Each structure stands twice: as C-alpha cells, then as structure tokens.
C-alpha cells in the first residue's frame, strides 16, 4: 500500500492506523515521487490525496491511466467535503475517503481490496 499526501501529519497517521492491522505501508510526499515508487514496486492499493501542491491527485490518476503497467492499481482518493473530483468524469477511482475520518472509516473502505 502507498499513501500519497503532502501533509506529514496525515501520512504518519495513515501509517500508524494501517500498521496496527499488519499492512505494509509506504509513503510518498507528492505525485512524481509516488509514480516513481509505483513503477518500481507492485503496490496493490494507492491512497491519493486530491489537493497537493505541484501535481494534484487528479493529475496522478490521469498518469496512472496512461501507463499500462500502472493501470491496474486500485486508487482510493483522500479528499475533503469541499473537493470535487467528479467535475472531470474521466477520473477512474475505486473509492473515496472524506477527511476527517476515523480508523474504522479507513478500514471499512480498505476491507474489500485486501482479501
């Protein structure tokens, strides 16, 4: 699993939450870093922050779609109620999590993809 978020607090928290469940977690601070990491490893699930400086979560999604080797990853979007990912319908996402969230919210969304 890969957590992509520019906010270290969120990254740390995600690691803490998923670590207790025994998942192996890596983190990336921005889009380019995430793409680099994904090219090298076979992470199954990607948590992607929508609002990031530089490359936004939406742009990361588009790039994932464009690269055949990366296309099959599941993407879970991290967003706040104010963000609107659906404006561009082309965006293919598997699930969304609204900030702020509890550990239970997170595990509920993750559940279907880890079995």
């Amino acid at each position, binding site marked *: 699993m890969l957590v992509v978020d*520019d*906010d*270290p*607090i*969120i990254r*740390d*928290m995600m690691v*803490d*939450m998923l670590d*207790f469940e025994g998942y192996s977690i890596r983190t990336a601070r921005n889009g380019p870093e995430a793409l680099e990491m994904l090219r090298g490893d076979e992470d199954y699930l990607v948590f992607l922050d929508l*609002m990031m*400086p530089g490359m936004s979560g939406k742009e990361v999604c588009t790039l994932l779609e464009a690269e055949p080797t990366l296309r099959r990853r599941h993407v879970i979007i991290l967003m*706040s*109620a*104010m963000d609107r990912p659906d404006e561009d319908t082309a965006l293919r996402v598997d699930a969304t999590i609204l*900030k*702020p*969230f*509890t*550990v*239970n*919210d997170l595990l509920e969304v993750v559940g279907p993809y880890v079995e």
Partner: protein
Amino acid sequence: MPNATWGDPEPRADEAYSPALLRQLLQQMMGQFTASGVCIALFDESTGQMVIRMHIRARGTNSAPAHTGTEPERINIASRRTTIQLNPAPTITGGLRHPSQPLEKLDIVPVHNSDLFPVGALYPIDHDMIGYAWRTGEAYIMRQEDYIAMFQPGQAMPLQAEATPTWYLVAPILEPTIQNDGQNRRWTTDTLGVVVLYQIAPGAGFQQKQRSEAISFSERIALYLQNDRLRRSQDRTLDYIRRLQQISTAFPTSVKLANLVEDIYHFTGSVVDVSSMLLTLYDRDMDRIYDVFAIADGKRVEGLPAHSVVKEDRPQWWHIAQVEQHRVLLNLSDQEPGKYEELLTGVWGDQRNAKSFLFLPMKMFTRVIGSLSLTSMHADAYRPEEILVLETMVQIITVSIENAKLYDKVRRSLHEAKQREETLAAMNSALQIVSSVLNVGELLHNLVEFAAKLVNAQLSTFFQISTDGKELIAEAVYAPTSRPKDWTELSTDAAKHKDLIEMIRLPFIGSILEGLVGEPFFYLDHSTIQDLAQASAEGGGIFLRETGTQQMLMIPVRYQTELTGILAIHTLGQSRFFHPKEVGMLMAICAQAGSAIRNAQLFEEIQEANAQLQYMDKLKDEFIVTASHELRTPLSAIQGYSSLLQRQHARTTPQQILRFATKISEATQQLSALVVNMTEASQLGTLDKNLQTGPVKLSTAAEVARDILSANIEQQITLRIPPDLWILCDPLRLRQVISNLFDNAAKYSPPGSHIELEANATRLSRLELPEDQLDPEQSDMDIVLVRVRDEGDGIDEEDQQKIFEKFVRASRSLTTPVRGTGLGLYICRRYIEAMGGKLWLEQSAPGAGSIFSFYLPHIDAPAETGESDEST
C-alpha cells in the same frame, strides 16, 4: 392736393376755384351780354386784393391769337346748356349791335398774356375799374374814353396794344344776402369778386339796364362759387377723415414713433401752412419731456430726441400743456415778443419771427402726453375749422401713442412673463439635476455651474464647512473664463483636481463669515475679501487674489438649521449687486441644494457601508474556504488518532499512547492558533478604522516581541536597532507583525540557528521594492526599514508570491513540512499597509535563508520621551 414742400406755400387751396366752372360761367355771361370778352377778379385773402383769375374773349376779336400761348380750346356750349341753367329766360338785347348772337357759334379763347386784365393782376380797393366796383358794390357801364379819363396825367395806364375795348360793363360779385344777418361784418367779405365785360367792335356797347342784369348774374356766380367752395370743403373734410382714418388704423400695428411723426407731418402740411413744427412728448413713467420730432423752417431736425428734460426745465410748456391744457393760437405780430419765448425756441430754432403760431396739447382724458406746435410765416394761417381738423388728428395720435405704449407694455410684460417662465423652467430642471445627482462632487459641480450661468457670473465657488467647523473648504469651482487659466482647469476637470480645489480654504470660526452666516445672503466687498485672503490659508488667498475677485455674493446653504456650506458668486474686476430676483432664484436653488447635498452625503455613506458589507461578505466566504482547508488537517489528526486509541487501546504500548496523545495535542494547538488568526483576519475589514496610531519606539516593540517568543523557540533572536528610532504606527499591530515574522522564521529554521532583526532610518526613494509593491503615487518620505533574517531553508521561487496572496495556501506552498497557521503573512501585510507601509519578501533562496522586510513612516522622537511608550 398739395404738398410736400415746406415754406413755399401754394395759393390757398380753398381759394382756387374750379377753372372749368369759372370758364363756363364767364362764357355764359359773355353770351348773354353779347360781349367780346370777360374777366373775373376774385378776392385773395392773403394779399387783401382782387386778383384776376380768368380772362376769356370771343374768337376773332383778338388780332393776335398767338398771344394765347396755348391751343385754343373749343367748347361746345350747347352741350353745357343742359347742365347750366343760370338764366333760362331770354336775354334782353334791345339796342345791341349783335343781338341774339347764337351761343352755338360763340367761340372762346382764353386770354393769357394780355396787357388788358392779365391773369394774376392785383387790384387794391378803389383802384382801377375793379377796385371801384369793389368799393361801391354796384355795377356800372363805362366807355373807353371815360375810362381813360379816370387816369390822371402822368399816371401809368394799362397798355392796350392787342385790342382796345370800346365799352365796359363792370359788376361786383356780391355774397348772397342770406348770409347777411344784419350783424357788423367786414365789408371786404361782402364782395367776392368783380366781373368785367367789354366790347371791342366799334359801335357795340352796353345799355344801362344791363347793369342790374349783370348784378343778378354775378349773384348767381357767387352762389355757384359758394356751392363749389362748399363742395370742395366737403371733399376736403372727407379727405381729412379718410386720411385720419388711415392714421388711426395705422396704429398700433405700426407702433414706430418714426412712422407716426412722418404721418403727422404730412397730414398737418396738407391741412394748413406749416413752416416749422415741433412734436413734444411727456413720459409719465419716467417724468421726462422729450422733443421727438422737429421741422425748422422746412428742414427736418435730425438726431431727435437728443435728450430729455425734466418739467422744471420747461415751466411754460408744463404750465400750458399739463396744468391749463388749452391750445394757444397766436398771431405773433400782435403779441409782445418774448411772452412765449420758451415755446417758440428750442430744437426747432427760434420761431419768434413767425407770423402764426399754434400749440395743441395732446390729451388723454385729463392727462397730457405731449404737444404739437406749428408756426407759419403767414398771418392768420390757422383758422378754426382747420384747427378742429388738427385737433382731431392730435386726438387720434394721442390715442395711438397711448395704445402703442399699452401695447408695448403688454408685450413687455408678456415677454417678462415668458422670460420668468423660462427661468423657472431652467431653475426647475437645474433643481432636478441638483436633486437627482447622488454623487456629492457632481452635485456641487452642477450647483456652482448652474448658479453662475443663471446670473451670468464668471466665477462661482461652493465652500463646504470643514468637519471640525473651523474652515470653509472649496469643493467645487466654476470658472469658465477665468484668468489665469489654471482656475478654469479646476472647473472643467473637477474630479481630477479635487485635491487642488480643496486647497482653497477660507477661515470660518473667528472670521467675519461666522457672524454673517445667519443672514439669508450677504455681500463681501473688496476690502473684506482682501482681509479674508490675508487671513486664509495659502490656497484661499491665492485663489481670491489671482481671480481678481472684487465682490462676492455669499449664500449660506443649510440642511434644516445646520450649515452645510456657502455658495459664493464672485464678481471679478468690478463690484456688482445682483437683482433681487436673481438673488431670490439663487437662494431657492441653495435651499434645494442643502437637502440634496445631505441626501447625497447620506447616499454616499450608505454606499460606503454597503461596499464595506460586501467586502466583509467576500472576506467571510474566504474564511469559510480557508477554514475548510486549514481545519482539515488538525481535525483529521485529532479524529484519526483518537479513533485509533479507541480501537487499538488494548494493543497500544504506553509509548504509542504518548505519541498519539502528543499528535492530538499538537493538532489541537494548531487548531486554536488557526482560530486566533481567523479572528484577527475577520477584523481586517474594519482595520483602518480601528488603528490607533501614534509614535512608537521600535526597539521597545521588538524587545517585547522577542521576549514573548524566545521561551518557545529553539533559535536565538538578535535585535540590531539604533536607539531612539521612532515609527508612526499602532503599537499593538507592530508587535504582532514582528512576532509573526519571528514565529515564521523560527518554524522554517533549524534549531540553534540565528534570527536577526535589523532596522535603520532611510528615505523611501532609496528602497528597492519588488515590482508588485511599487506605488507610483506614493510620494517620497522618511521611513524606517525593518528586516528579519533567518537561516532556514528558504522559499521556492514559485512559492514566493503565494505566501502573501491567499492565506490558505501560504503554509501549503512551503516545502518545509512545518505547519503554520497560514494566515500570518497575509495579515501582517494588511497591518503594515494600513499603517502606511509595505511588507515584502526581500530575499529567499533554498538553503540561504529568507529576509522579510517592511517599512513604516519614520517620525522624530516625541519631545517628552517615554510618554508614548506603549503600555502593553
């Protein structure tokens, strides 16, 4: 009828008997008495003698027909007989040499240049045959020899070269006896003329009995002449009436006095003999006497009316015309000279040598509006019936002049009413313009422009009372033709020159104006204006002097009882007092303007408040957006970690619990800092009003900020501030800005590094500001430059602008993973700008640290040091 020539009167019109009638009568008489020739002499009043008026002779009796000078006329007597029935009875012809000569064959030629009884010859009474018959009033027969015997030896005898009569029958023409009522009458009027019949052929003669026949025939002649005279007089009267009608109908359609006097002049000349004439009018309204028209000895006097006089200058005229109101008729030769000197002299020359004088007052009921004076060089030139005609004429023209005056008055008052209406309409539209404008500046500009145009003034100003009530400040100037041109520019582009206009100030409290504003309006004379210019601030004095303001009409403008300002109408170069009507109109406009200005002011306040509200609203929206983004991270942390503690409490180690709790605590702190900043930001809208600026000692403020912060940070803060450096600002805000800069520096710098604040006094022009902070309108000034330097990571170039723009992204744009409150720099910049300074990022490079700089106005240290040191 005569005549247009003055001073050269033709023979009196009523004395020129119809020649056709005369000839007819003489011809008939000649036939009846079988005479060779006949002539008629008629009395001429102007000479007092008998004048030969006609002389005719049977054709063939004259050996020298060429003497006739004209083509002999053939007159068909027979055709005339039907109309002339003087004596239908057959004539007694016994003893005559040529009895019953048929009238049809009588051929007549007029005799013109005859030596015998030439036409025009004059005969005084008792002189010659004619004068004798005139005196005796009887007819007589005389032979040529007896006639010659009448002349005494040596006495000139009439030459009789062309034809010598043998016998004469002389008969006076006596006035019909019906006129003789037995009263004493002058004998000269009894005999109208004398008829002389004569025979030329030798042997032909007259009989004694024919004398009575001749008398009765001449009586008929007299009747005919009188008839003719009556008819002519009737014709003349009709003619007068017709002409008078023309004169009367000419008014008031042609009201020009010039035309009127021409008509008077022609008409008068056609009625009587006039050598000089004078028309004088009296203007009741002005109480002046004018000589409007004069003919002096046949020549028109040009350039009248030259001037007017008061009645005291014409006591005689006033007495006769206005007091006695009677006509004066004089035969001047009978009068003592100088009695009517005033009436007989003046613009029409000296008339005292005239023979006749007529003065006719022009009356309208009991008022006299003028007089008509006439003189003639003939004695007795004005007779009662003609005076009556002239009086009628004078009456008509009097009415006409009065009509014309009335007509003029009505027209004038109509014109005035129309003007008034137009002025009212103009005022109305102006008032509407003034009232409908809700922009105070535009309204005042309209006001001064309209006021100046209304009264034709070259300059007008509106002075508004200053907020402290001490001064009057010009808010609008209208100076379309002002010299120097600078002032004109002020009025043409008022908005652009608002600052300049507002430099025109007059003292109010303590000046003469303060005492006068209670009046509805007042004038300031030149010396008062000079005093005011002396006492006023520079701009006001220059304005009053340069425009050459000589006098000012001042109209206070009020809203209810509160003085708003004063409208000033300047008079340049000379003093001018305005007509009460004009002042009234200006006051009406000012009254309206008072409430209009108030309305506009209220409207502007409302607009301002509205704009403020809208701004606040926008700010609030920004707060919400900001909040949703900024609150997300700390809230996520708090919710995330607390839920994690809940779920995993059985499996967490104490170290983990501590770490999670610390995370929650940090997020809470971040949250509360955020709330504090947002509270600050929410007050930015009213920042300008809430500032409490004063002299602040920079070192004191910086030390306080450092002391508060240094306990919580791991960096060392150094202050390098010259002693006694003072800034004009709000001390609380300044400290907040410095704290914020220190805080930021600390967050982005490694522990143990240095943060340095350095300050120095300089000029604004020496600064190198980033382009977006340059303000071309800002004039140079003394400033204090403050720089805060850190040794941190610096800020990416692309982020350097963002940190000030949206407070939301300020923190997110920073690469360093330190979470700030996000609002700091934005608020700092707003604070500094509100206090008259600028804040910018002077330098920042990754690894080389950043320098944030700001400046604020530099002021000298207050006289009593320490007093202004802030207390908190």
